């Protein structure tokens, strides 16, 4: 009877395409909204992912990566003394102003790396050599900084500009993930970063740490926190901390979360409704099948086969369309868009769940056969 069930489904082109369109649309809506939301969340922790080290040590009351709470310079030495630390390096991170050729200012996120090791440097260098950061006045721009500071014509290797009235010379262009606040990153060495910035008592933003081989990052982070009284987080923990803070404090959680939630509800309602209508329209056919001896179990299997078949096809097409959207609109990292497998699996489960649920309602109607359905 699988054959009959599938023929009932595919045989009526118009009805089938309507049904498919409904399921496709809801999948696309949910995946697209969810991916943009998650993309935004990833942007919010790009300060962490761009640096890419196992453990971050900072003030214990830190809320999120962009909110720098400077430490005393001695913290690096203190952290280095904790057993299990392979290395611990200073990182400067702070919002500064770059002066453009036309006299305007542009806010940048200045990142100062340990000069000897350049730990925390971006993974991809697009132009120039990041090692030249050790040269006098050298800085590296990310691709967003190139755009913001005057475009690729003006900002290229060798260009000289000013950060807080100090000379800066571009030696490399690197690739980073865009930040949530959309402030471009400018890299230099730790020492030079201190010189670029106005005098302050404390300037050490973070201590970056790698555990010795065989020591789990979580365990070492706990130990550092315990022995130094500082806040120590694995990159993952710090990322989640940042996401939680953003969700709670920026209104993105409420505003965008509501949109995502509504997208989910609307999408599921459309999916459930279209499939339910499909089975209701077929009720007479199923009734006739029951009258001529198809058991409720057999009808249930037929309806479930139909709903899962069209559900899976709609899911596939919907994801295809959402991905095409993400690839087009999110090209070059301009739009936050991150399709993650938990989202895809979640949508699949929800979609099949709603299909099964609407099937169950129709099956219930068939459990007790109304003669009015068939003898007419």
């Amino acid at each position, binding site marked *: 009877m699988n054959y009959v069930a599938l023929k009932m489904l595919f*045989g009526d082109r118009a009805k089938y395409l309507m049904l498919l369109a409904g399921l496709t649309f809801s999948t696309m809506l949910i995946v697209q909204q969810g991916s943009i939301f998650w993309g935004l969340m990833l942007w919010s922790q790009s300060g962490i992912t761009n640096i890419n080290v196992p453990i971050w040590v900072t003030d214990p009351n830190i809320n999120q990566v962009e909110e720098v709470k400077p430490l005393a310079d001695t913290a690096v030495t203190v952290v280095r003394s904790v057993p299990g630390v392979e290395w611990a390096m200073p990182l400067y991170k702070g919002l500064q102003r770059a002066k453009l050729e036309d006299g305007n200012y542009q806010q940048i996120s200045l990142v100062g790396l340990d000069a000897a090791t350049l730990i925390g440097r971006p993974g991809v260098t697009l132009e120039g050599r990041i090692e030249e950061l050790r040269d006098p006045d050298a800085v590296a721009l990310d691709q967003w900084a190139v755009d913001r500071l005057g475009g690729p014509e003006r900002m290229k290797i060798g260009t000289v500009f000013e950060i807080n009235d100090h000379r800066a010379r571009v030696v490399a262009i690197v690739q980073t993930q865009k930040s949530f606040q959309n402030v471009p990153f400018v890299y230099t060495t730790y020492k030079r970063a201190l010189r670029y910035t106005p005098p302050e008592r404390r300037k050490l933003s973070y201590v970056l740490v790698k555990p010795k081989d065989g020591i789990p990052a979580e365990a070492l982070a706990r130990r550092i926190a315990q022995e130094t009284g500082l806040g120590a987080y694995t990159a993952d923990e710090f990322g989640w901390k940042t996401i939680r803070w953003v969700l709670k404090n920026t209104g993105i959680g409420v505003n965008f979360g509501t949109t995502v939630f509504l997208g989910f509800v609307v999408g599921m309602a459309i999916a459930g409704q279209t499939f339910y209508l499909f089975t209701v329209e077929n009720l007479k056919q199923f009734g006739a099948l029951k009258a001529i*001896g198809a058991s409720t179990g057999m009808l249930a299997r037929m309806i479930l086969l139909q709903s899962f078949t069209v559900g899976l096809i709609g899911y596939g097409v919907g994801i295809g369309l959402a991905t095409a959207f993400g690839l087009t609109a999110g090209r070059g990292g301009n739009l936050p868009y991150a399709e993650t497998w938990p989202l895809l699996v979640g949508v699949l489960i929800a979609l099949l769940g709603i299909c099964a649920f609407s099937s169950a309602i129709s099956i219930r109607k068939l459990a*007790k056969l109304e003669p009015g359905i068939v003898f007419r």
Partner: protein
Amino acid sequence: MTTQPSEIPEPPASAPLVHARGIVKSFRVDHTRIPVLKGVDLDVAAGEVLLLVGPSGSGKTTLLSVIAGILDADEGTLTVLDRDLFSMTEDEKTAFRREAMGFVFQQFNLLPTLTATENVAVPLLIRGLKKEAAFARAIEVLKTLGMGGRLTSTPSHLSGGEQQRVAIARALVTEPRLLLCDEPTANLDAETGHRVVEALCRVGKRPDRAMIIVTHDTRIFEFGDRLVHMDDGRIREVQHMNEEELR
């Protein structure tokens, strides 16, 4: 159950295929009970074509639904093929319909996306037969009903009479002992209706099989062995037709 009938048709006196006594059925509409069947006694013998006639609302469809096990009666006893229908569960009744009954509906109730052959094969597929075997058998039955030329047509490409022939083929394909037809000609013009019932009786009438046909259509009365008149939930009159021909 019953052995294959010998050359001598079973006399009507032998155990009837349908044996109903004191069937009472009422529907509840807004807290009031509307009695529809008010004590129906009916026996249907093997080999018999019984025509159930009567004014609209007299309870013919209701009676047919009760005999089919689609509707539960409030009172009375009913045995079909020696089985007590009222003591069966819903699933048992469904299985019983699958094994022992065939149906022809007023609105044909064919699956619109299936071809004639596929529609006729459905009861066999429900029984678990392989597709090829089911289709072969379906084609055989369709041919006996003069539908050999329309095997791959879907219902929307068939005339009403042709659709009803497909429905008849579907009802007969499992060789059921009891065939229940509710107004099989109501959606057909008189001429077509006559020819369809003629085909139904030619192919479907068997010494071991009973047919109950609910109808308003006087032009098909000639095909009945007995005419049972219902009125207001009771059987008013039983008329034996073609008696001389029967004996």
